[in-house]
């Protein structure tokens, strides 16, 4: 692997031990994928490290006194301690949670990380088409690749840090145009109405597609040309729950998919599937793991809601009340919350009994970790990510109802899962 003078100096320890370690990790990853050289990255996104002492120790070893070299944002925390009471976090857990969260926040501040605490950080750093970056968090990486046309491999927590403090990444995988072409064509069946797709439909679609992809990049053919970034957001993580392809194309919509030919790089698709009503319904069924219709929590905003989504939720809740038995959590980032507050959406939602949180991961974070303490056994959501991740990781203790946004809200009001 070719290293330029600066990279060699980094690897030989002339820029300090932490940079050396980071460069060593990046070189090893580069060797694993036959990268010819390093490239400069302009932006990194980190994951907020988890709570165990073992992982925090690893984080500290990697970061030490290092400062980030490029603009670097960070994923949500597991809790928003400022709103612990409303979340219902028991007093007994507070001290421990404070300890582990505050040490992490302090460490980020020290590194110069931009404390965005969101899985949708694209409001603070605008990526351009073709820009090379180093991002972790599947939703952030895949949105950047697919929707924004930026180039990032799916980084791990460790390599994202290494890139943030060296400004480099090995030049392999999705950084190379030749690896970004579609391999599998997924046609949307004629019995579906993509114009009317809810966020849940997009998630279910990607979840189903992911099962047949392996490492191959899909090209969706037949989705609505009016789909929004929020729709695309829900397609990201579900895809990699069963595949390892961190990219997708939507014909006529995403920047690298103007025509089938261009999207497949002039080659024929290796494989072709149709997703119709039957397949989509089966994805919904698979993602519904709950038994009883009683629900404890309705969790929206996985990934973090944008302003339109919060507006839609507010609209559905206007003049209604969330059932006393149900918690309604909506995750977003703080700038979106500021705008939603101005538009009166937050008041509408919170007057109805819902809570809108920034800075934290409501679904796979808080709901999963605190399910026992908060007595959460059944969650309703429009997020295929949450529905795909939580039941397995909670080892069956938590069941999920997965459905469209309006069904989730109607269920929050009734206190029971169902459409009416």
């Amino acid at each position, binding site marked *: 692997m070719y290293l330029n003078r600066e990279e060699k100096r980094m690897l030989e320890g002339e820029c300090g031990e932490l940079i050396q370690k980071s460069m060593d990790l990046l070189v090893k990853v580069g060797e694993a994928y036959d990268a010819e050289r390093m490239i400069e990255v302009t932006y990194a996104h980190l994951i907020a490290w988890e709570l165990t002492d073992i992982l925090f120790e690893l984080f500290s070893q990697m970061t030490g006194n290092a400062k980030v070299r490029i603009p670097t944002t960070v994923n949500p925390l597991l809790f928003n301690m400022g709103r612990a009471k409303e979340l219902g976090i028991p007093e007994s857990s507070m001290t421990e949670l404070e300890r582990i969260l505050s040490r992490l926040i302090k460490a980020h501040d020290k590194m110069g990380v*931009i404390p965005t605490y969101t899985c949708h950080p694209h409001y*603070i750093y*605008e990526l*351009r*088409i073709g820009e090379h970056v180093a991002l972790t968090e599947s939703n952030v990486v895949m949105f950047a690749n697919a929707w924004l046309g930026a180039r990032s491999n799916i980084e791990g927590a460790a390599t994202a840090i290494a890139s943030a403090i060296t400004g480099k990444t090995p030049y392999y995988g999705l950084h190379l145009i030749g690896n970004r072409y579609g391999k599998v064509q997924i046609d949307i069946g004629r019995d579906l109405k993509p114009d009317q797709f809810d966020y849940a439909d997009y998630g279910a679609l990607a979840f189903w597609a992911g099962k047949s992809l392996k490492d191959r990049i899909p090209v969706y053919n037949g989705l609505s040309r009016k789909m929004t*970034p929020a729709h695309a957001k829900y397609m990201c993580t579900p895809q990699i729950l069963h595949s390892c392809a961190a990219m997708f194309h939507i014909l006529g919509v995403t920047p690298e998919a103007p025509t089938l030919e261009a999207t497949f790089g002039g080659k024929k698709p290796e494989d072709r599937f149709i997703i119709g009503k039957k397949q989509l319904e089966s994805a919904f069924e698979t993602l519904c793991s709950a038994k009883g219709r009683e629900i404890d929590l309705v969790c929206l905003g996985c990934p973090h809601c944008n302003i339109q989504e919060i507006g839609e939720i507010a609209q559905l809740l206007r003049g209604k009340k969330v059932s006393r038995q149900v918690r309604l959590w909506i995750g977003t980032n703080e700038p979106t919350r500021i705008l939603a507050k101005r*538009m009166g959406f937050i008041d509408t939602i919170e007057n109805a009994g819902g809570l809108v949180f920034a800075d934290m991961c409501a679904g796979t974070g808080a709901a999963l970790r605190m399910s026992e303490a908060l007595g959460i056994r059944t969650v309703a959501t429009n997020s295929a990510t949450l529905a795909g991740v939580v039941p397995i990781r909670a080892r069956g203790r938590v069941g999920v109802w997965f459905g469209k946004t309006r069904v989730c809200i109607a269920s929050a009001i009734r206190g029971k899962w169902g459409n009416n």
Partner: protein
Amino acid sequence: MPLSLTLEEEHMLSGDYGSGVQKSMDLLVQIGEAFGAERMVEISSSHLIPYEIMSASRFGVPPAKWFEDWVLEMTEGVSSFRVVTTINPAIVNPQRAIELGFKELGEIDPTESVIKGMEKYKRMGAIPVYTCCPFLIFTPRKGEHLGGAESVAVAFYNTFFGAKVNRESGPTALAAAVTGRVPEFGMHHLDSRYGQLLVEINRGLDSNKFTYADYNALAYYVGEKAQGRIPVFYGLSQNLNVTQIKYLCAPLGVSAGLPMCHIVGVTPEAPTVEIALGGRRAEDKIEFGVEQLQEAYRQLTTANDERVDAVTIGCPHATLQELGECAQLLGGEKVSPKVKLWVGTAETIRFIGERMGYVKAIEDAGGFVVTDMCAHSYSYCRGAFSRKHALGTVATNSAKAAHYIQIIGSAKTWFGSTEQCIKAAISGRWQ
């Protein structure tokens, strides 16, 4: 070919959706006809400019009513906008009007009209971002059709994202938000987007060392010479960041009304010079060197008094990176008590800036990080504020601000790098 409308558009035009939609569609159809559009295109977003920008006159007669009535006509019977709608900064942030010295002007208070305008648009669903950089909230995709005014937003959408948007105006942006349509001409046609004017950065200039002001000067100079032809910048760094591109986009509309540019190796439609030019020969070529850079600086500078009364930064609205740079350049020093230092940005950016400690650093030094408003257009471009606060000389790192202060305002301008501006704020003198 006459402009043909879809069934829905015909219904809009015939008044079936109410008179506001009808008036809006009528305006768009007339514009479309004037420019030979054959049809309307559906858009996903529009960016409005608040009409009360007109209601604060330097003559003390706020004809707010004219514009309020006009907006009422255009929105009669419209309960909400049809597309994602964002909105430009107000002339003043009503919450900070007193603190910033707007309420002692002796003219009729503009804040009431500002609040009225904000509420009106908010009720119709406009996202109250109040920034000229709405791309920080709404990310369009390549090839997506948009509506919208504000030259900074338009140039950035076209240049940075490859979205398709004409440089519209206040009325058509509103009509676009109301109808969800714009006439298809200009930037909506791929063919009109190719570059025509090649701008080569002279080897004598190290563009890697360009300050924001240098990018501004480059674009301002080119804009003046372009005569409406879309420039292709060749020879700039391939690693331009958002802030640098923002400064390259901002002056394009100011001096020549250009809706976009190409930056070879950077922007989506300009991987190579040939592609940016659409395979054609450039109509003309500009060599940009030290001499041209200096000429632009001369044009943007009208002051000769070293004493600086005000420093304005954040035109277009500052990014987080710029807030950080201002904080760092202040380096714990105080802004001279004789100088006003305003850094304009969006509230959403200010929030993160607060978390990073940048806002505190700037405000502890005596500067203001102002949000939701333009940091210069009302204050320095209208006479009353400058006269009241005796602001004879304003320093800025923005070509757009310098241009408008010169043309509409009464103050003289110094134009230079952020560093020069911050130093001037501390010492009270331009060096």
